[in-house]
C-alpha cells in the first residue's frame, strides 16, 4: 500500500506521508503560490524514487513548471510549454463558441502524464487552450503535437468550466505507449495509436444535455470532466461527465451511460481500480447549477460490478452541513487499489485504506485542493 501522496492546492504543494502515527503532512512546498497540478513519474531516470513535477499558475507572471528529483526537497524551474506563433492572418474556419478567436497562449497546465517505461524522458502535457505538448527530456523542452492542434475538428472545441477548451486527462496505455486516450472539455475523448501522428475522436455514447438535441450525442462536443483508464485492462475506461457517468470496454470505441449511482451521477472526479476495471469511485455533487454535496453530506460512491450497482460510502466523512466540492484531479487510488485519498475546495483531505469503506481526516484546514496524486510504481 502507498505511504506517500502529494496535494496541489491554491496556496502550495503538500506532501502527505504515512508514518508510525498515521497520515500527516510531511512537507510544504511553494507556500503561497497556486499549485494547480502535481505528477509523480515513477521511472528512475533522474531520481531513484522517480521524479516529481509541479505546475504553478502565478497569475500575473503566467504558468510555470518545476521538477524535483529528490522527492520534493529541492525544486528546479524547467521549461514551460509555449504555443507557436499564431499566423497574423489566421482566421478560424469554425466560429468559436466563445464569440472570438482565442490567443495561442498557455493558460493552464491541466494534465501531466509520463510516457511509457521505454520512452526515456517522455512526458505528455495537456493544456488550456487545447494544446497537447510532449517532452523527450524530462521537461527541459516541449513541443506542441501538431497533428492534433492542426486537426480540422480542433477548432470546434469549446470551453467547459473555463473560457477555453482544455485537455485534462491523458491515459497512456501501459501495454502500448503509442496508444493514448485523452479527455477534453469540451471535445470528448480523442485517441491516437501511433504516438500522436494521427488522431480520431472517440465513439458515440456520451450525452450532452447542454447542447441542442440534435447535437447531444456528437462525440466532439462532449464534456468529460475526467477520463481514467484501468492500467491492467487498458480497454476499460471510465468517465465522470458533465451529464453523468459513462464507461467504455472497447478503448473508447463506444460509451455506455450509468444512469443510477447513489445520490447523484454528477461530479468531477473518478478513480478506477488499478487491477479490476469493474471497480471505480466517484465523489457526487448536486448537478451542475449548484455543485455541492447532496443534503450537505460528503460521500464517495463505489461500484464493484461495472456500474450495475453502487455503494454510498460515508463512514468518517462529514454528514452535516458539509459543502466540499472535489475537483477532477483531487481523487486518486494507489497501486494496490485499497488506499484512496481525496481533497476538497474547502481544504479538507481524507484517506481510506480499505477501498473507501471508511475514511480518516488528514486535514480540514488546507487551502482549496486542486489535485491529489499518489506515488506509484512502474507498471
Amino acid at each position, binding site marked *: 500500500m502507498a505511504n506517500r501522496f502529494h496535494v496541489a492546492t491554491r496556496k502550495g504543494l503538500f506532501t502527505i506521508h504515512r508514518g508510525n502515527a498515521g497520515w500527516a503532512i510531511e512537507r510544504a512546498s511553494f507556500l503561497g503560490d497556486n499549485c494547480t497540478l502535481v505528477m509523480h513519474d515513477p521511472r528512475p531516470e533522474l531520481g531513484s524514487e522517480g521524479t516529481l513535477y509541479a505546475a504553478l499558475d502565478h497569475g*500575473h507572471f*503566467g504558468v*510555470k513548471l518545476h521538477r524535483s528529483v529528490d522527492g520534493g526537497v529541492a525544486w528546479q*524551474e524547467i521549461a514551460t510549454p509555449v*504555443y507557436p506563433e499564431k499566423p497574423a492572418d489566421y482566421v478560424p474556419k469554425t466560429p468559436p463558441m466563445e464569440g472570438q478567436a482565442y*490567443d*495561442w497562449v498557455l493558460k493552464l497546465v491541466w494534465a501531466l502524464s509520463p510516457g511509457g517505461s521505454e520512452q526515456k524522458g517522455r512526458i505528455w502535457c495537456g493544456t488550456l487552450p487545447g494544446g497537447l505538448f510532449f517532452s523527450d527530456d524530462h521537461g527541459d523542452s516541449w513541443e506542441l503535437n501538431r497533428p492534433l492542434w492542426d486537426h480540422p475538428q480542433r477548432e470546434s472545441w469549446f470551453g467547459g468550466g473555463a473560457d477555453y477548451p482544455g485537455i485534462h486527462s491523458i491515459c497512456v496505455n501501459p501495454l502500448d505507449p503509442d496508444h493514448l486516450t485523452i479527455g477534453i472539455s469540451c471535445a470528448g475523448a480523442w485517441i491516437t495509436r501511433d504516438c500522436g501522428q494521427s488522431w480520431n475522436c472517440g465513439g458515440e455514447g456520451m450525452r450532452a444535455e447542454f447542447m441542442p438535441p440534435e447535437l447531444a450525442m456528437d462525440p466532439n462536443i462532449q464534456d468529460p470532466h475526467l477520463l481514467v483508464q484501468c492500467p491492467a485492462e487498458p480497454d476499460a475506461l471510465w468517465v465522470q461527465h458533465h451529464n453523468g457517468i459513462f464507461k467504455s470496454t472497447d478503448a473508447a470505441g463506444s460509451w455506455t451511460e450509468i444512469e443510477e449511482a447513489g445520490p447523484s451521477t454528477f461530479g468531477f472526479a473518478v478513480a478506477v481500480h488499478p487491477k479490476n476495471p469493474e471497480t471505480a469511485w466517484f465523489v457526487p455533487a448536486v448537478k451542475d447549477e449548484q455543485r455541492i454535496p447532496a443534503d450537505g453530506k460528503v460521500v464517495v460512491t463505489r461500484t464493484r460490478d461495472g456500474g450495475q450497482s453502487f455503494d454510498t460510502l460515508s463512514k468518517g466523512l462529514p454528514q452535516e452541513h458539509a459543502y466540499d466540492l472535489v475537483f477532477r484531479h483531487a481523487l486518486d487510488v494507489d497501486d494496490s487499489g485499497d488506499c484512496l485519498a481525496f481533497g476538497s475546495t474547502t481544504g479538507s483531505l481524507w484517506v481510506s485504506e480499505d477501498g473507501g469503506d471508511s475514511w480518516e481526516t488528514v486535514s480540514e484546514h488546507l487551502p482549496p485542493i486542486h489535485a491529489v496524486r499518489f506515488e506509484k510504481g512502474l507498471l
Partner: protein
Amino acid sequence: MPRIRFTENLQRHVACPPGEVAGGTVREVLEAYFAEGNRSTARGYVLDDQGALRKHMAIFVNGAPVMDRRLLADAVPEDGTVDVIQALSGG
C-alpha cells in the same frame, strides 16, 4: 541609455535587477534586457507565448502606461525609464 526596473514581486521567482539597455521602443528595451545574460526565463514571466505583455502585467514609460501591449511599439526616450509592474487587475 534607457533604464529598466522590475516589480519586487518578480524577484521572488526570477532575478530581474535594474538595468540600462539600448532601445528606442519598449520592445527593443525589453528584448535587449532579456537577451543580456540569457534572461529567457524572466522573459516568460513578463511576455506571453506570442510576445505580448501578459494580461495582468503593466509597463510604464516615464510614468505613462504603454498603449501598445501587443507589439510594444511605444517610444522610449534615450534617457527614459521603463517600469515593469504587476497590474492589480490580476489580484
